[in-house]
């Protein structure tokens, strides 16, 4: 009996904590959504209203018509998809190489791989810009797709993953006369497809949400991604279009939200794998 009476107030505390934190997590989203339907004078109106008194759709029509949001979404999708696919290709390949092959210098090469993971991007910000300039890649999507393609973290991740695959599968295929690349694409890839989805989601999200890259490399508004476009609505001299800005923010979240809700488990796997020795 005593344990039960101890349980109830304890449980209430637990639930309260969870609920309070959850409210804090949800609040900005809710407010973003609410603001996106408000007239300018209601955004900082008194008293604050969750459901606007005079909801409007003009913030949304504004960003689609005046700010070419479709074009911007298109840019963002192209960049995110390209970089994800390219990264997945190279990281699965590299992970396979490290997982299933022995070769001279393997230890050293792998150590170099790990070492590259501690270099902060700050060191490369300036010179990357300069070499992109040399290549003529400024104001194109290429700087946002190509350099990140061979991600050390990705290779590390797939190395772990692939090393759990039974060698016999590959040996059998070799006996049957399959080419090395054929083994990779026909045997390995299908087996690791859950991992591909997990890591692909992470890559996609990182590219979609990237701000600094597009800020530095995408100059013309027609090449912008959605993060830079949201920021551009913050114009000095009082011309901050909070309403359209929140509307665009809402739109920027929707694709990722949908993907996340469908692939929740894969997302979690993608983050934690490689970090927890399980």
């Amino acid at each position, binding site marked *: 009996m005593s344990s039960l009476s101890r349980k109830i107030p304890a449980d209430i505390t637990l639930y309260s904590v969870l609920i309070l934190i959850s409210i804090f997590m949800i609040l900005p989203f809710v407010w973003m959504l609410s603001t996106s339907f408000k007239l300018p004078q209601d955004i900082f109106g008194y008293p604050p209203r969750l459901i606007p008194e005079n909801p409007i759709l003009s913030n949304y029509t504004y960003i689609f018509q005046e700010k070419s949001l479709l074009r911007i979404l298109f840019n963002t999708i192209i960049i995110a998809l390209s970089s994800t696919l*390219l990264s997945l290709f190279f990281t699965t390949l590299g992970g396979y190489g490290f997982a299933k092959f022995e070769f001279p210098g393997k230890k050293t090469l792998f150590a170099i791989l790990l070492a590259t993971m501690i270099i902060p991007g700050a060191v490369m910000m300036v010179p990357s810009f300069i070499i992109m300039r040399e290549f003529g890649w400024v104001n194109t999507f290429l700087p946002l797709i190509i350099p990140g393609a061979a991600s050390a973290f990705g290779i590390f991740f797939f190395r772990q993953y692939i090393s759990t695959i039974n060698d016999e599968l590959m040996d059998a295929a070799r006996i049957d006369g399959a080419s090395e690349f054929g083994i990779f694409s026909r045997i390995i890839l*299908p087996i690791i497809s859950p991992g591909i989805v997990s890591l692909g989601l992470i890559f996609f999200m990182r590219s979609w949400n990237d701000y600094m890259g597009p800020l530095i490399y995408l100059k*013309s508004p027609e090449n912008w991604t959605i993060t830079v476009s949201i920021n551009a609505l913050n114009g000095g001299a009082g011309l901050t279009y909070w309403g359209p800005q929140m509307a665009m923010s809402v739109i920027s979240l929707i694709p990722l939200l949908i993907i996340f809700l469908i692939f929740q488990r894969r997302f979690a796997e993608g983050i934690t794998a490689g970090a927890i020795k399980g």
Partner: protein
Amino acid sequence: MSTKLIHKLLAVLILVSIVLSACSTATTQAPAQPTEVVAPTKAPVTAAPATKAPATAAPATAAPATAVPVVEKPSGKLVIWVQQANQDVWTQTVLPGFQAEYPDIEIEFINYPPADVATQVGLAIQGGSGVPDLAVTETRSIGALVALGGLKDLTSLIEPYKADLNATVLDYCTQDGKIYCAPWDIGPVVTFYRRDIFEAAGLASDPDSVSAMVATYDDFLATCKTIKEKTGLNCFALNKANNLGTMLENMLWQQGLGYYDASGKVTIDAPYVVEAVKKIGTFWDANVVSDALEWTDPWYAELNAAMDNTDTPPIATIVIAAWMGNFLRTWIAADQAGNWGVALMPAYTAGGVQASNQGGSDYFIPEGSQNPDAAWAFIEYVNLNTANQVAQFVYSDYFPANKATYADPVFQEPDPYFGDQVTRAFFAEVAQNIPFGYIYGEYSVTMSNNAAVALQNYALGTMSAEDALKEAADAVRLETGMP
């Protein structure tokens, strides 16, 4: 689906994505070689819009109106980078006329937030590609671009108009005797004041009296104290933590001083700057200022509030440039029509100059421009043509840098928003008195930022004025290499 098909699809997808992304640049890829701008009145030229001038032709000096008939008008695409507000001004006034005059010029506007045009052009020049054909940016930022290089030399083209342009502002466009931009507007600083609040405080509310009441900053302080006593209202907004430093800039500019001097030395920690900062401090000490930050919603509310508004009490004055008048009239303080008036800004010392400059914008053509002829045609028609300048002024209140416009009758019109005061003539007079101030220039961004931080430190009491300014000056010296 067979795995083979999946692989093929994936490969195609990757390839397509890469190709699409490489072809993403819709903007012009600037050629590396500069092209020479050909004025419309040259001897017959071939079809190409940008060719080298024939060696025998005299340099173009004739004004367009009386010139030899134009043989080949500039045509083709013209990409203009400009902030939305400026584009609106053109659209509502001069753009139709321009298109009629130059039907073969196809303009493409690209909007950036105000502060970004200069940054983006600078980066495009740095990046070697993607520069616009023409751009307009704030005078505050033009110095850095001029110093960067990569702007077209407009000296010979602007020669016929030079005498009419405000010399002080034209100076910012000049480097080594060559002119690299064409000024559009300037920002003569005045004191906008609330007539109703002055009257409620028992003070006179006509412009001349108010100008006398704020003749120096000490007089201004005394007036503010009176207003606070009699009405409980604040005098103007002077934020502490995020102060932008505009008051400091005005104080220095009107004395013909600034953040650096003619010899290229950093002067942010000079005694006269310390003195100015302390003078600003007297307003905080007297508790006559509000804490609203410029360009935020509380600030707008203060400017638009009625006298009896207790939630957001109004402020009595604002010392700012002439272009603010239009903002007040249209989107900030439309409710207070008739309640605002315009007086002179305070002088730093008794009898001193009651004029300064804040803001202003300029046209410029990057070297990599693909249609410099069309760009110059635009500048000439829209900006240097007196009648067109006046039209834009009437619409926007952007005060013209072109002195020839001041003779136009519109300058004598009364403005109902300001209680029928003849504000335009007023601004024109102030404009004539603007001295050269060492505020804008190659390093204005870092100078203004650091000076503002110094003022913030002083305001919040974290550092003394001397220490804060010394730190700011040292930071600027470090970054710029100036002594």
